[in-house]
């Protein structure tokens, strides 16, 4: 299971980031979001979000075992994360991030199966792909 981005529907507004931070921390802070919209112009960019890879490079790169490959998604155990950033260097899709507040890695956890960003994006630029 992963979040699929439909680029043609996206207007680059970052509402997904805003609601992601609210869903995870109860406050607004798009830099703590688990998906990020890069700033580009004149054309806006769509968000980059974890693809829940079948052969995740981030899992291979993680020196502490904080990242693991589950049945259908990649899990991050914050307790084991040291914030070394190796996963961020390893991800070919720029889709795993450093939380500027905790200094630890953050990634899309699919909100336990019902992602807040997908529900919030009325532009239908995000969808859940089983």
């Amino acid at each position, binding site marked *: 299971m992963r979040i699929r981005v439909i680029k043609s529907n996206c*207007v680059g507004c970052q509402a997904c980031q805003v609601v992601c931070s609210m869903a995870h921390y109860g406050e607004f802070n798009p830099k703590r979001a688990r998906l990020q919209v890069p700033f580009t*112009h004149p054309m806006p960019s769509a968000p980059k979000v974890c693809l829940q890879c079948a052969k995740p490079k981030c899992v291979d790169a993680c020196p502490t075992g904080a990242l693991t490959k589950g049945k259908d998604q990649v899990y991050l155990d914050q307790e084991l994360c040291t914030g070394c950033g190796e996963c961020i260097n390893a991800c070919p899709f720029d889709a795993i991030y450093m939380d500027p507040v905790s200094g630890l890695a953050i990634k899309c956890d699919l909100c336990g199966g019902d992602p807040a960003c997908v529900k919030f994006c009325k532009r239908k630029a995000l969808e859940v792909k089983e």
Partner: protein
Amino acid sequence: MKGYCGKLLEIDLTNETSKEFPLEKTLLKKFIGGRGLGSKLIYDLLPPNIDPLSPENIMLILTGPLTGSAVPGSGKFVVVTKSPVSGGFVDSYSSGRFAPELKFCGYDGLMIRGKAKEPMYVCLRNGKVEFMSAKELWGKDTFDTEEQLREIYGPEIGCICIGPAGENLVKFASINSDFYRQAARGGVGTVMGSKQLKALVALGHKSISCHDPRGLMELLNLHLTKLFQSPVAQNRMKYGTPSTLDVTNAAGMLPTHNFQSGHYEKAKDTLDSEGVYKSIVKSRGCYDCQIACGIITRAKSGPYEGTTVEGPEYETLGLFGPNIGNSYLPAILQANILCDKLGIDTISAANAIAFAMECFERGIIDKKQTNGVELNFGNYEAALDLIESIAYREGIGDTLAGGVHSAAKAFGQDSEDFAMQVKGLEFPAYDPRVGYGTALSYAVSPRGACHRRAWPPALEVLGKADPYSTENKANLVKHLADENTVFHSMLVCDFPAKWIPLEVKEYAKYLTFVTGEQFDEDELWQMADRVETQIRLFNTREGLKRQDDTLPGRIFKEGVVAGPTQGRIIPYDALSKMLDDYYALRGWDKEGFPKDDTIKRLGLTDRGEA
């Protein structure tokens, strides 16, 4: 209170120092933020009668309690200062990442004083304030400036800057943000230029907390669903604001040939919604706005092939289109991006050019002044050249750079009658002869001719009010203006609110969810009334009077040349009657000065007493 940072950052450019400026809860409850807070602070902090382009002027850049939250259109900031155009209060808005970044840096806004010794930019990053030399940026256009700053500090920064027009103190210089968005009206970029402040950068990691996130998100989801079902919103999503041209052309208020006419035959399939639609390549949303009324257009052929811009917005389209006698859309795209890069207000620039064209056709100016150019309506190449001449103050551009009011003084020969401005600020793209309320709204708008304070055509054109009657018009204008003051104080874009549509009471709920303080609708309406009188106190202190609440001669004397409003004027007596009514409703005397008991009733005080 949640939602606020509770402080501004006070920046002294002269001494290169900064300190926190606390905002008391009682002040915030009374004035909310944005326009409201700005009206109080500028009145209290600015000494009377200073030159707007002197170091003594203060530039406030403010957000509001809803800025950076998930409420749609919450990515806005306002620049409040003493206007070099009107000599009175100006508040000019833009959107972009800069607004939420200010709050992520821990500030509700900035208070900028003094003047840098040499070109400077200021960078706020993670609690640090750095005063940086902008010697290498000075002279660069806004795009080059922003590119360079994003290269240094990262693509995700919030950034605002001025272009060459602001440096050269063009009276209608803009402040640019995220390349294509401008706080452009009333000379706010001119004030920034006078301070030798090229740019501001903000990047912060702080969060914005709110009192009742669950309540907020529930209400928000309900409103977003309604928003996406709204026919107006759907129209804006497809066409952007250019679809307004269909309405204004049909109603006879589309400015044509410097507001001589209100209807433009050639707009069909060229500049109307379907005409512009052919050039749209993508929509682009402001921060946290899924509607995305911003359109990206591209010239697909011709001399401007490849020109790509976020725009044109309706005002730019109408004023660089019919108002200069031009139906060639790619030239409008080119004008749009030129103004953005040079840092000029498209509304005022296009008015200045249309004014010069009319002066040329009437023989008030000739080829000696235009450097040999046949400056007739429709000559869009000359118009594009003039944009640059204005920004760099070359030739006739130097005269036009002062705006149409001052250009009319220079050109003489009664050209003042068709210098389309109020209080020095040029007309937006609606002919006020479409209705008495529209005329009143231009006349009483505190920053000068403006469609963003109250927009009576919504009622006068769409049949809910008799356009050519004075009856109830003061009430209508007051109501619309107060409604916008609520939105512009919170500070959110008023578009989603109007498209759903939502009333002030719904926004009172948002305010309560975010701040945890009880706000009811009545309090917000009273706040808006208070703010309007606060601004009036500022303007009257700076010398503006009843005779400044007026319109150019053309509107009183010359009938609209063609179209549905043909022959229409606004009788002077009608405006005068509506002014009496409006002042009475506000609790101002016949000359427009707020009465003592009004000041007391609204809980306002004299300067210096917080």
